[in-house]
């Protein structure tokens, strides 16, 4: 099972000091967070994509390329890459390039985005959101799998004799996750292709997450990719930890109360009861995270949000230390218990390459 960090990349004033980091500070902080994640043994770093202040990460593959050069092992991903408003040709090119630079340590999570004006800013209509996700991904898959593509669709200029370069590393496209919080159509899309499905459950009650994942698992099996239990599921999580539970609550409360997404709404106590947010000791985080399996089944990827709402970098790095040293080792051990042997790990470049070679050999034997 993979554990990692996902970041939104918000520039938010620290409510306890009033300090607002510069864009440069925030971008460098995101890099430091990724490096720390690798240092403490986490498996994945994923960045969001945004095209409006107060967010900085408009150019994820630029950032991930830089991080790739400064790390050895960690998988670089996104949370999410906008399949609606980005040109699928550019996504194909950017992520193939990143694959080569990062020696295959790359996957991608596609999403539709939740900022209305981004659609018109990029010449699209938000009412086409689902259709854009379906058509653009259909093209993206072909660009990664076929050397020469002729294409005509509703949303972009037709292509004749187009080759996306560079070709994917070893002719193995990056593994794709589809992220959606509310849309059954996207769970259906992920199931149809046998791709991964990531439910960012961090602001949602568990029964909603449960329904989305159950739908994806059922349809994954329907399309013949395996049993429902073998579908590739990812979940979010949001944590703030101190050795003493009360210290964690006291320190995090001002950040919670003023957080951009949910601040000035429910109390910290209500929100922790209703959503995956855990504010307390590493043991409490372990307990809560293990409970995700009760309604999501055995899953493949767990990403934690630790760096939003104006938390200073030093505090965030302490959180990642706690995750790496105390939380994730226990989670690895506990999640492995009673996990059926036929539940796969999340595909990575090595496993996809091995599978593609096995298929090719089987084909040549038959021939």
């Amino acid at each position, binding site marked *: 099972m993979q554990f990692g960090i996902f970041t939104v990349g918000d520039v938010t004033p620290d409510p306890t000091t009033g300090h607002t980091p510069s864009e440069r500070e925030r971008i460098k902080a995101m890099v430091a967070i990724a490096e720390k994640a690798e240092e403490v043994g986490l498996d994945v770093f994923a960045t969001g994509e945004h095209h409006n202040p107060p967010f900085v990460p408009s150019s994820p593959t630029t950032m991930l390329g830089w991080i790739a050069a400064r790390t050895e092992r960690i998988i670089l991903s996104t949370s999410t890459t906008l399949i609606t408003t980005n040109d699928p040709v550019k996504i194909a090119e950017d992520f193939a390039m990143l694959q080569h630079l990062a020696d295959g340590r790359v996957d991608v999570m596609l999403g539709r985005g939740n900022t209305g004006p981004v659609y018109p800013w990029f010449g699209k209509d938000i009412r086409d959101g689902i259709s854009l996700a379906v058509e653009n991904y259909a093209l993206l898959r072909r660009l990664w799998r076929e050397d020469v593509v002729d294409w005509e669709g509703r949303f972009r200029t037709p292509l004749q004799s187009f080759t996306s370069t560079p070709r994917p590393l070893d002719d193995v496209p990056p593994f794709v996750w589809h992220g959606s919080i509310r849309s059954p159509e996207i*769970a259906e899309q992920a199931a149809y292709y046998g791709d991964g499905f990531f439910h960012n459950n961090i602001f949602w009650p568990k029964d909603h997450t449960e329904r989305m994942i159950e739908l994806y698992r059922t349809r994954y099996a329907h399309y013949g990719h395996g049993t429902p239990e073998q579908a590739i599921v990812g979940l979010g999580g949001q944590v703030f930890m101190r050795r003493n539970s009360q210290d964690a609550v006291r320190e995090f409360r001002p950040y919670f109360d003023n957080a951009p997404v949910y601040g000035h*709404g429910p109390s910290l106590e*209500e929100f922790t009861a209703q959503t995956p947010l855990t504010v307390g000791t590493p043991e409490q985080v372990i307990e809560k995270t293990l409970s995700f399996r009760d309604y999501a089944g055995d899953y493949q990827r767990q990403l934690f949000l630790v760096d939003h709402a104006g938390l200073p970098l030093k505090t965030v790095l302490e959180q990642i230390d706690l995750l790496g040293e105390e939380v994730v080792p226990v989670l690895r051990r506990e999640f492995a218990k009673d996990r059926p042997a036929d539940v796969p790990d999340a595909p990575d470049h090595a496993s996809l390459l091995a599978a593609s070679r096995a298929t090719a050999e089987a084909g040549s034997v038959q021939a």
Partner: protein
Amino acid sequence: MEAITLAVVSAGLSQPSSTRLLADRLGEAVRDRLVEAGREVRIEHVELRELAHPIADNLVTGFPGEALRQAIDTVTGADALVAVSPIFSASYSGLFKSFFDVLEQGALTGKPALLGATGGTARHSLALDHALRPLFAYLRAAVVPTAVYAASEDWASAERNGLRRHIDRAADELAAVLLRQPARTRRPDAFAEVVPFEQQLVALKLP
């Protein structure tokens, strides 16, 4: 036959409230007619005052807490809706609007509904037709022709030609609709009825 469920939503703020009083009168009048016609009726009250905080939280977080979710399920699952708001500043109250704002799109489509409003004087009675009715038209509820406004003075009106007559007429209309269409207006379940992906592709006419 299954019992007919009637969700009665009241946005009154004072306790006791004349808005709740009108809501109760409307609900009971509808129930009496249905019972007379041999149907069993279950009235489920949704008092928005008790949900003021959860509704505000939902506006901020995007999802309903447990108590609000139960209220939403009550309203969307009912066979018919009676919705009554006090008139504030020439329109429905903010709390009333906020509750209907946090429903999922399409949640009230086709739902038989009876509208009511209360105010200090009769001067704002047209808010029913200029504010509440367009809101429920947008929500695609099937609103009956008579809506009932109760000003303070109406609570002392003579039985034969005052508030009582309006309540009776409105209740006749909603009861008639429910007796004609006993079938429940259940929302389709997006999870149970997922559009197969091939259909999504075909809709785009991709090669």
